């Protein structure tokens, strides 16, 4: 029987909440992994070049940078909330009826914190 390669999924197979949670978790993880080295470098300037660091911190007060910071903070909060949900599923246990609620709570907490940051900072 001659057989050939397989067909793949498209967006229609991906319309459920848990899938979007995965996308948010993965994309936020990539963003944070790329941001971390930059973050460490900037902070390390505190000893050697404090004046340069202060100029940089001043620059971050600009609205465009503030928006990016809010997005970063949202990424961190979302990755945390999604990660805690996964740890619960894998180590505490699965209840089918809790899955949608867990997703909603995680999303609410992440967005709530990011909103707090945007308003207060």
């Amino acid at each position, binding site marked *: 029987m001659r057989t050939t390669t397989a067909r793949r*999924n498209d967006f229609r197979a991906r319309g459920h909440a848990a899938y979007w949670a995965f996308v948010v978790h993965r994309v936020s993880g990539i963003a944070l992994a790329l941001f971390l080295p930059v973050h460490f470098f900037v902070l390390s300037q505190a000893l050697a070049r404090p004046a340069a660091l202060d100029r940089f911190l001043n620059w971050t007060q600009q609205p465009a940078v503030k928006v990016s910071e809010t997005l970063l903070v949202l990424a961190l909060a979302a990755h945390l909330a999604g990660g805690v949900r996964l740890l619960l599923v894998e180590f505490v246990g699965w209840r*089918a009826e809790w899955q949608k609620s867990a997703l909603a709570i995680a999303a609410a907490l992440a967005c709530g914190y990011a909103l707090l940051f945007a308003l207060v900072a």
Partner: protein
Amino acid sequence: MSRDAESTFAVHIWRGDAGGAFRRYDVPRRASQTVLDVVTFVQRHVDPSLAYRYACRVGMCGSCAMSVNGKARWTCRTHVDAVAADGALEIAPLNHLPVVRDLVVDMAPFFDKWAKARGSFVPTSTRRDAFARVEPSSAERRAVDATIECIGCAVCYASCDVVGWKPDYLGPAALNRAFTLVSDVRDGAGAARLRAVAGDAGCQACHTHQSCTERCPKQLAPTASIASLKRLVALAAIKGKL
């Protein structure tokens, strides 16, 4: 009843192998029509060369699983009204399995992975021993009850994006069956099965998309089984028993 009075609708059915294409057929719309009815109509009245699989046609065997408007489903249990609200129906073979022809896929890789995950029972007693006594209300038996109804239809496998991204990934059905056996107190495979389901193509590759759980026609939750396997494999590794 005059045939001219019957309304028809457009159905796009995959023809050929993986390099094939959709072909349009105009099919009469009938009450309580299922997608399997549509495919059968085309094969019997329009094009006898259309290849497809079915058996029980009452939602018990899983043979009629196909991709309907992009989602893997049992076509005998999918009413046209439920999926073709705007009158458009697209029928394709299951994803992630080699396409033999038209709507028929090669199920061999699916069952090969079942075997790779050690998805078969390893007996520990003989006919000379007494029957095993497993209390129905015990935690282990309830765990088995929740996962054992799988009939190997491959809808979950076709729905899983990790299967699509990692061709070696054992997949939700094989892992679900492995967990069912891990929960079976009579089974003797032990750590060997946990080793079989661990690895880059094993349970740790699951990203909890829950596509399998969304689509399983028997309402099983392979995501839950795989999460349990992750936990059991981790504990075995930490205890040095893997």
